[in-house]
């Protein structure tokens, strides 16, 4: 395989990873707080639609903010239903996904009826990084990207910092791992969990908007194509930690990018093999992660037994 192909695969990896990183980091907070949000796909697709719609009115930044906003609103509703009315987290998550997919298509069909050209919004403008882009290999891979890729990197650092260097970050972890002890310490368990879910919702919406407002410029039904579920897997793989999630997202995106572009070489496997590979590898990594977690737990209890 040629250098150009590798450059293309790696550049594609970063572009495909960005939305996963946004939504994944949000879901990381949710799962660290001991919850799970199966509505991410619905929140992402609503973010994707709202992003374009609002973007057409007020430009890309407004679109991104609106995308995050709609995710936030959906998360507020979810928190209410799950933690006030005690509805099942899993069922509500699936329902939110169903609702998001249906509603986004519904609104899109009303907005752009048959016979009208789809609306394209201006995508987030690319910064001209001048000579950096001309560095061989590294230039096109790292410096030819949408600003949202850099934003995802910034978010990663920010999430890492919040997790590590703030009381909130510690509280999220405490609430997720041992709510009773945390409550006894004086942490407000419900409120911390709710904050995490809201962050997760907003970032899922932003992740969806990053696809439409960030790169494509317009919405089509089902444009998120199941990425919400991938985010869940990526978060488990990354053990809910920002850096792990980012690595998981990069791994998945790399596999997808590789699967796409290695088709343009003479490797003649059925295209389904390429399309399934990312899921298969994710499953394998999931198994390895679970196994390791189980072993660690076992070691920690037997370790204590020996003392």
């Amino acid at each position, binding site marked *: 395989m040629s250098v150009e192909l590798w450059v293309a695969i790696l550049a594609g990896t970063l572009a495909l990873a960005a939305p996963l990183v946004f939504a994944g980091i949000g879901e990381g907070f949710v799962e660290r707080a001991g919850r799970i949000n199966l509505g991410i796909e619905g929140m992402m697709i609503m973010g994707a639609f709202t992003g374009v719609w609002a973007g057409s009115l007020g430009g890309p930044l407004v679109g991104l903010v609106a995308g995050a906003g709609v995710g936030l609103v959906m998360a507020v509703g979810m928190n209410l239903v799950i933690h006030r009315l005690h509805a099942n987290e899993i069922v509500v998550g699936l329902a939110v996904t169903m609702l998001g997919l249906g509603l986004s298509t519904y609104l899109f069909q009303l907005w752009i009826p048959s016979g009208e050209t789809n609306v394209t919004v201006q995508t987030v403008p690319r910064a001209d990084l001048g000579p950096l882009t001309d560095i061989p290999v590294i230039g096109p891979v790292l410096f030819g990207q949408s600003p949202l890729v850099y934003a995802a990197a910034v978010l990663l650092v920010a999430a890492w910092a919040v997790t590590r260097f703030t009381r909130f970050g510690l509280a999220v*972890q405490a609430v997720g791992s*041992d709510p009773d002890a*945390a409550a006894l310490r004086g942490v407000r368990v419900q409120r911390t969990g709710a904050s995490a879910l809201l962050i997760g919702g907003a970032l899922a919406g932003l992740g969806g908007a990053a696809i439409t407002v960030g790169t494509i410029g317009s919405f089509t039904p089902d444009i998120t194509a199941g990425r919400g579920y991938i985010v869940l897997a990526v978060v488990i793989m990354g053990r809910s930690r920002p850096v792990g999630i980012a690595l998981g997202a990069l791994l998945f995106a790399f596999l997808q990018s590789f699967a796409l572009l290695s088709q343009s070489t003479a490797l003649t496997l059925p295209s389904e093999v390429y399309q399934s590979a990312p899921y298969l590898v994710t499953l394998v990594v999931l198994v390895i992660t679970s196994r390791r977690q189980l072993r660690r737990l076992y070691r920690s209890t*037997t370790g*204590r*037994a020996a003392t």
Partner: protein
Amino acid sequence: MTASQEQGDRVLEARSLSKSFGPVRALHDVSLVVRPGAVHALVGENGAGKSTLAKLLAGIERPTAGSMTLAGRPFAPRDRAAAKRAGINMVPQQLSLVGELSLVENYLLVGPRRLADRRSARALLTETLERAGVAVELDTPTSALTQAHRQLGEIVVALAEGAHTLILDEPTASLGPLEVGGLFAHLRSLCALGTAIVLITHRLDEVRQVADDLTVLSHGENVHHGSAAGLEPSQIARLMVGELAAAPARADRTIGEVVLAAEGLVAASTRDSPLDGVDITVRSGEIVGIAGVAGSGQNLLLDVLGGFVQPSAGTVALAGTAAGASASASVFQRAGLAWIPEERSEAVVPTMTLAENLTVYSTAIGSSSRVGRPTASKVGARLQAFDVRPPRPDLLASGLSGGNQQKLLAARELGSAETPRAVLAYGPAQGLDLRAAQAIRERLAALAAEGAAVVVASHDLDEVLGVADRVLVMFAGRVVADLLIAQATTERIGRAMAGLTGTPPTADPEPEVQV
């Protein structure tokens, strides 16, 4: 202002505090004066109300009646944070350390700042550790620390948070003598600086060692308060429980074959002290009591004996099961092992009816008694026999009060037509009134007389002493004493429970039991 005036300004006083949890009266009309610069010991049986009192002082719970003053002014903290701000801090009995976080992070978790500054927090904790003369890893997750280090760690965190009144609920329960020594030295030095310490403990010799003042609680009431000076542990024990009532007359029982035998058990759990080489033998017709401070491994031992936890070393053998076969809870159940766990919620299914709960073993895989639905009259009779109120077979178990759920459990495990081969019971009379508790004890004795091998564990020493022929005392995952009931004085058991090696375990591995 002189130092003593300053200290006098900070007296914490509780007047006629009462606290009820629904129908449960945990505290009744208890008063207490905590003096700055002094260690105030708070002792009493399990369930006497010590932790409840401590929680009232620390703002975790609020009293149903009575009041508190701090430095002469009314003191009614809204929550733990408010009490902390007023200078009163507590290390709860159930540690509040988050296992995934290090001590530094646990300190920062509810710290005053939004930003977690690990460096200065570590410096502060290191300094506190040095002053307390102990060494604990500050940066590893606390779940990786030993129980003792977690205990010390939580104390250190509380010390670092700073307080003029520090309440420690059974801080020494899991500490070794060296650590206790270091801790007490530090507590004394804190006292010298004017800090008030409330120390809850079951180790009565510690009272003599470190306490200035003493309050004894019994059944939620204040039965003694005053100076701790000159009181011997045995005197304190008498204050706590009074003279032991004479054991009820025992029916003649023939001690027979070994029914339940465990050898060299080693097992671990995240919830209890790991077992460290436990041997136990129970014969037909014998009732063996297991005593010990909570968390000494009794729970885990019963889990292993019941077949719920596979030991990493050692064996459990129950007569009637194939020798050497891997023991499991269902095999033991079918072989006739009755089971009353410490938490009755583990054994009663609230969403099933009384009848379904009572006959649940007929649904076991391989159950011989596939009777389908039992007749209502049979079930009703059994419910009445155990005084379950109301004795309605079609009522959901969740509709019963806690005590009646306990009776339901007893009815199922101890009331079947066939005599169980063996019985494992942890606090079988918990939550029961005196009459019902007595009935359960009599039932256990009757089963033993019919040939069952019975194991009774309890936090409540009376419950054990009232029924057992032989008492094993557990400490830190080991059996440290094996006493015939005749030898089992409160003092000897109390010392063994506290891990005092003065009472060597009886050498005789198969003691003869006089009945």
